[in-house]
């Protein structure tokens, strides 16, 4: 029974008879090109801020778990009042560092290649002058 499966995928859209799946792109003029080269830097600033939101959300989930582990209902007031003990604080710090290592891997892989004595998988542009 599908009801027994947690997180079951939604049933496929019915396509019998005259129905076709909805089209998800618009006809007409192409999507305009919005971003300019310098916008990538701003995107990175936004991306790092978003990492902060994910990290805060994870901390909030962890607070819920800690409260429930202790038999406390995770009400808004209980979440606000919660202060992690030292062990939980250290664990959260380790989780944040691990998350950063995973998310920023595309940056650090070049250093790992350098430490392994491998050539990086990128072409270096001409840089003298």
């Amino acid at each position, binding site marked *: 029974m599908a009801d027994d499966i947690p997180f079951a995928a939604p049933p496929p859209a019915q396509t019998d008879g005259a129905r076709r799946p909805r089209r998800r792109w618009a006809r007409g003029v192409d999507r305009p090109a919005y971003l300019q080269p310098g916008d990538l*830097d701003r995107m*990175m*600033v936004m*991306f*790092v*801020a978003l*990492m*902060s*939101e994910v*990290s*805060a959300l994870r*901390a*909030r989930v962890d*607070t819920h778990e800690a409260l429930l582990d202790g038999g406390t209902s995770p009400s808004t007031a209980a*979440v*606000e009042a*919660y202060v992690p003990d030292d062990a939980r604080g250290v664990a*959260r*710090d380790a989780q*944040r*560092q691990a998350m*950063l*290592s995973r998310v*920023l891997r*595309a*940056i*650090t892989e*070049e*250093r790992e*290649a*350098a*430490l392994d*004595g491998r*050539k*990086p998988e*990128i072409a*270096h*542009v001409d*840089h*003298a*002058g």
Partner: protein
Amino acid sequence: MFQEPHAALPSATHDELARQDFCSSLRKMFTTDLFPGANDVYYRQLLPAFEARYGRPPASPQEVKRLTDSSFYFRGSDVVGRAAQELVWDTVGESIERQLDTLNGNARPRPADRGTLRLNPDLEIPRYIDAVDIHVMPGNFHTELSDDDVYAGALYDRGVYVFAFGGLGPRNDGLGVAQAEVIRERFPELKPRRILDVGCGPGFTTLPWKEYFPDAEVHGIDVGAPQVRHAHARAESLGIAAHFSQQDGAHTDFPDGHFDLVASMLVTHECPVPVIRALFKEAHRLLAPGGVMLMDGGMPPIDDPFVQMRTSWFGMNANEPFSGGFKALDYPKAVAEAGFAPERYFTAEREPVYLKGQLPPISFFGAIRD
């Protein structure tokens, strides 16, 4: 480790604290992993490739910059470092803005205070301070958002703790303690009656003077009214008597020869060279005979253009446009031109307060007033 609480320190909601913790983790990763890791990429990959191609190493920091710009490691970690810098102030700033009325109220002087607070609403904010938000901290050290405002002081107090992931100690005062230790070791006979901390901010470098020299009258000055308001409230809450006033260290209202010690920490590298010279000159005027001026800085010249470029990271990425001029300054000459006898110039070093083994020693220089 937690920042030591005091009555002027902002509080944080669950999520505000979680975001601040993230900022600290990000700053820690940048500072202890991404930044030093650049050495591996440079010395193992970029430099050998450059030398193989051109038969010589890069000749200048500019040439090094072009070489490192060819690497995503440098481009990616630098933009993350810059984003972290912006995120710290924005994250802490939002939290402080929410509770600013309360913080302003907590900071108001009270009749039973041990120390004093003097403000000067007519003080002209120098253009080099008003035009450049140092550390990309919006509003810099002086901007006021409200009456009796402490915003920028509270922002720097909490922000520095988050930024340094607690590395300057529960009171952010590690550098102030280092300064006081330099004086106590180097001048064991000095019994200062009055001490001045120039550019005191929230008082991280002011209060250690009182702890090391309890009999001295300790003053902190800053052009930013929010800094001295916050510094006063912080000192009172910590039970330390100090006197804070809103003044420009280049021309104060203290009489000639009023102090036995004039010190400044992490201030001069944010000042244009003419201002640094004016600070030295004012210190000379303010010191009594036998008094000591103590400043941080004065690192030996660096030969490797890569190291030169890396040590100007904050100058290039975090709005410290004057740090290059400070680094290039001939300190003994500038101190002598301010009126000190050349043979009274001295230097000193201390182990770094945080990031030991990674940062070079803290360097000091100064002079004794004849």
